[in-house]
C-alpha cells in the first residue's frame, strides 16, 4: 500500500469500489459522444432542411477520416481516464481501520483513515428504484472523538454486507486511546 502502511498484525479485509452500474452511467456521455459522428448524418437525413449537410460526414476523405480519428481518440482517452479515476477511488477495510481513498482527479487524492475502535454507529441508506434493485447504497460511519466525525461511502455494492463486515471488526471492548 502506498497511501498507508499496514501495521504489524493488520491485514486488508475488503477493498470496495463504487457499483459498476454507477461507473457505466458515468461512461454513457462518452458513448454518446463516440457515436455522434456516425448517428448525425442519419439524423440530418430525417430533417429535409438539413439533408444536404449529411454528405459532409463522408469519412472516406482523408480530412474527415483524420477528424473522426481525433474525435474518437479524445473520447476514448477521456473514457479511459474516467475508468482510471473510478478504479483508484476505493475504500479499504482492514481489521483495524477503514480507509477512504478519494481520487478527485489526477494529482489530487485524499486518503482518510478511521480507526474501527472509534466507530459508534454504522448507517446504510438505499434510495431509489435502481439502487434498490441492484443493491447500491451509501454507508455512513459515525465516530467518537476522531478527526473525521462522519465517514461516508457512496454508491457501494451490497451496503448491508459491508456494514456487517465493518461491525464484525469493530472491537467490542473499549480500548485505551492511542493504542
Amino acid at each position, binding site marked *: 500500500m502506498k*497511501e498507508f502502511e499496514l501495521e504489524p498484525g493488520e491485514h486488508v479485509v475488503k*477493498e470496495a469500489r463504487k457499483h459498476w452500474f454507477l461507473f457505466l452511467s458515468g461512461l454513457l456521455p462518452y458513448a454518446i459522444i463516440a457515436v455522434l459522428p456516425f448517428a448525425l448524418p442519419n439524423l440530418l437525413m430525417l430533417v429535409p432542411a438539413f439533408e444536404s449537410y449529411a454528405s459532409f460526414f463522408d469519412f472516406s476523405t482523408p480530412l474527415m477520416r483524420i477528424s473522426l480519428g481525433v474525435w474518437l*481518440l479524445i473520447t476514448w*482517452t477521456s473514457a479511459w481516464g474516467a475508468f482510471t479515476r473510478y*478504479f*483508484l477511488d476505493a475504500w479499504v477495510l482492514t481489521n483495524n481501520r477503514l480507509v477512504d481513498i478519494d*481520487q478527485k482527479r489526477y494529482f489530487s487524492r485524499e486518503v482518510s483513515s478511521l480507526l474501527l475502535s472509534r466507530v459508534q454507529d454504522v448507517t446504510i441508506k438505499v434510495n431509489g428504484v435502481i439502487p434498490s434493485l441492484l443493491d447500491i447504497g451509501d454507508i455512513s460511519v459515525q465516530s467518537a472523538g476522531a478527526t473525521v466525525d462522519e465517514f461516508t461511502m457512496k454508491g457501494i455494492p451490497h451496503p448491508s454486507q459491508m456494514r456487517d463486515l465493518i461491525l464484525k471488526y469493530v472491537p467490542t471492548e473499549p480500548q485505551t486511546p492511542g493504542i
Partner: protein
Amino acid sequence: MSASALLTQLNLRSGDLIVGALYVVFAFWAFYTLVAIYHWLKYSHASWVTFPAIAVHLFISLAIMSYALYGSIPLFVSYI
C-alpha cells in the same frame, strides 16, 4: 482574407496544418496517457487490473491513430 489566401501568404499548405494539429493531439494523448499510467502504477495497489487496463488503452489508441493516419487498422488488430 480567405483561409487559403492566408495559408499562401504564410507559405503553408493545408496539409502542414493538419499534420501540425495531429502532432498537438498526439502530444496531448501521450502526456495524458503517461499521467494516467503513473497513477495506475503508483496507486493501484499492484492490482492485476493495472497492466491489462494500460494494454487495452494503448492497443485501442494505436488502432484509432492508425485508422486516422492510414485509413486502416494494423494487421495485428484484425486478428483479435
